[in-house]
Each structure stands twice: as structure tokens, then as C-alpha cells.
């Protein structure tokens, strides 16, 4: 008896009463909602007519260059050369995502940087991470050098 009384109070009809205003459903405008959902992975860059693009980006060469090493692009399709700074004044450059003969790349980098800056910069080869850390800031030079190579 008590349970029947309890249920009757909570029986609300789907059609409108004064307390619950009605609604209409539609699926036509749902395409506008789909535009708002963020993508779940990094999109591949579209094909352009001319490279470099107005912002200065270039894709990697279609055929990887015939060298004993390979430098892959980052997740966001950029050249993996980064600048690091410690103690506020110690500038370093890091080249990451290297594959293959890392010592050959180290030799080529040494030759290139000696040619451009005059002095031979100190370099640290990390064989476990497959990265090279260079003393001094050369990130713009190294990025353009790697792009010319076709990486």
C-alpha cells in the first residue's frame, strides 16, 4: 500500500504539464556540434603548390637522402632541433630523433659548424636517446641545414 503511494507521486507523463515545459528533438543541427569536437590526433599537413609555405614550413623529401643516418620529423611535422638554456646564460642546441650512424652525423655537424662559426663547438652524443647536444645556439642554422639535406 505504502509502496504504491510512493510510486504514484513520481509518475510524470511525457506530455507537458505546467511544471515541465515540452521539448522538440532534432538531428539537423548536430553537424555544428561535430565541428566543435577537437580532433583526437595530429592532422597530416595538406599538399601545397609551392614550398616553403608562407610560414616557412617545408615537408620532408619524398625520398630519404642517401646518408648513413636519418633525422625524423617530430609529431607536429617539424625538424627536431631545439634550443636549451640553463643557469640563465648557458645556451645549447639539441638534435633529437636520430636514427642510424649517429657518429657520422656528429662528424658532419662538426664540419658544418666549424665552417660557419670558425671554432669547433663541443658536442655530446647520447647513444641511448639517439640525440646530440651542442654547446652554443645554432638552432636556426641547423634547421636550415637539415632541411637542405632533405630531412
Amino acid at each position, binding site marked *: 500500500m505504502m509502496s504504491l503511494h510512493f510510486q504514484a507521486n513520481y509518475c510524470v507523463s511525457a506530455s507537458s504539464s505546467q511544471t515541465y515545459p515540452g521539448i522538440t528533438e532534432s538531428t539537423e543541427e548536430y553537424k555544428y556540434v561535430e565541428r566543435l569536437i577537437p580532433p583526437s590526433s595530429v592532422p597530416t599537413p595538406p599538399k601545397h603548390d609551392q614550398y616553403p609555405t608562407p610560414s*616557412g614550413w617545408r615537408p620532408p623529401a619524398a625520398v630519404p637522402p642517401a646518408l648513413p643516418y636519418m633525422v625524423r620529423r617530430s609529431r607536429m611535422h617539424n625538424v627536431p632541433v631545439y634550443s636549451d638554456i640553463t643557469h640563465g646564460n648557458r645556451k645549447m642546441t639539441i638534435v633529437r630523433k636520430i636514427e642510424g650512424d649517429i657518429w657520422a652525423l656528429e662528424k658532419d655537424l662538426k664540419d658544418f659548424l666549424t665552417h660557419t662559426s670558425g671554432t669547433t663547438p663541443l658536442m655530446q652524443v647520447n647513444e641511448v636517446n639517439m640525440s646530440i647536444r651542442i654547446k652554443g645556439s645554432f638552432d636556426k642554422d641547423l634547421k636550415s641545414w637539415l632541411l637542405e639535406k632533405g630531412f
Partner: protein
Amino acid sequence: MSISKSGAKSLDLLKKLPRISLVNLGPNPGAKKNEKRRGRGQHGGNRSGRGHKGERQRGNRPRLGFEGGQTPFYLVIPKYGYNEGHSRRPQYQPLTLNKLQYLIDLGRVDPSQPIDLTQLVNSRGVTIQPLKRDYGVHLVAEGAENFSAKVNIEVQMASELAIAAIEKNGGVITTSFYDPRSLCILCKPVPFFTRGQPIPKRMLPGEDLLPYYTDAKNRGYMAELAKIQEARMELARTYGYILPDITKEELFEMLSMRKGPRQIFFGLSPGWVVNMAEKKILKPTDERLISYYNSS
């Protein structure tokens, strides 16, 4: 030398050395330095690095900033409200034209649809923190020389040169205001839709920002369209470029898309509830609700 993926030389060396165990592991020479222990031995003992008598040895020096009785520096300088009301000042995250061009080139932002703050946040081009007094994004003209994309962009603030760069390339720029609640919803629409609340009305700007958004020079969303046309032509005259005619373009419909002053999302009106699980939109039918949500 065979090409292996990682650590060629060091792995070869490791194969020839004896098995690694706690006995043969140790830090690099010079990596660990012993700590200074006071009160022990000839050099650490005697006065233990505390000096000779006085407050220094006895550990009774006065507080930081005390200058022996002279009025200290931190009291000589008078107070001034540099940071007063800092938590009530609107902040805008900068977005350079360089970054916008980069996002379009890499396909992270689609220029064939109107570019909104939601699109910029989804492409991770800007990070907006509405809870830290951010009121939106500020378009800045760095990289205006290399900018060449035709876009319909809506920002919260824009510099004059940025407006000129966008209009020169045949695009459309609008500045509009989002109150903090609407901005939260605009930046993260999916968590809002999962809450099951109806899309709220966007509030109008307060008296401080109203002159900015009613001015045609800033392409404010509350300015008159005729005045905006005049301002476009005047800007072209000032900066010396020919204003392209947008009406004769294929994407004219997309470029002329604009949100209503109380609308947060394109195509979705305030008052609607979005059901993402069943991909439906629920719209109210009650007249009072409709008149409330459609009123300006």
C-alpha cells in the same frame, strides 16, 4: 659498421664487459661530493664556520631588511597601487599572424570554415585560461608581411595592422566579447555539452569594453555594418593596398557568417540542450523560454 637503431658503440662495449651487478656499478668520478660537516676535525671544528663572538656567532642577528636603525629601504619607498585590482583586469592571450599562418599551413586550422576561438583552442594554437581572468585572444600583427590566408576570423581584440593584413588578403575579421562563463563554454564545448545544461545567452560587454566593441575601427560585433564598410575602405587607404571585393568570391557565404550578439556557437542557438550520446539537439517549445533566449 652495421646501422642499428640505438646505441651502437655503447651496446657493443657492454656485450664484452662482465655482468652488471651492484659490485661493478658506481657514479662518474666527480659526480658525488661529500657534504661539509661542521664541528669535526681541524678545519670544520673550533668555531664551526660561525665567525668570532657577537650576534653572528651567537645566532642573534636581526630580521631581514633591518639596517641598524636607519629607516630600511622597504619602508622608505612609498606604497603605490601597481597591482591593485589586478584580478579584475581582463587579460588577452596574444596570437601572432605568424602562428595563424603556421596553423593554416600545417592543416591544424581549416580556413574554409569560420575561425573561432574554439577552432584555435582545438588546434592547440592558443591556450586560454578563463579562470585566470583571460577574456580571450588578441590578434597581433607580428608576421604581417608573410601572412597570405583568406579567413573569416573572430577574436576578442585585434591590432590595427593585424586587421589590415587580414582584410588585404580578402578575409573578414570581427572582434566580439565573451563573458567568463561563455568563454569557458566556448573554449571547452564538449565538457559543457556533457553537463546537460542549456546553452546560455552570451552577456553583453560592461561599460568599460562597450566603446571598444561598438567602434567600427576595431570591427566590433556591435558596430553598424555600414560604418564597418567605411572603416575597411579607410584602412585600405591608410595602409596603401587595394581592398578586394568579397562579394564576388566563391566563399562569400562563409566569409559573411557572423554570430548573433547572444550566440556562443555557430549554428546553435542559446536555450538548446545538446545530447552527445544520442547525437540529438533538444529545443524548448515553451513561449516564455523561447522569448527569454531569443531576446537581446
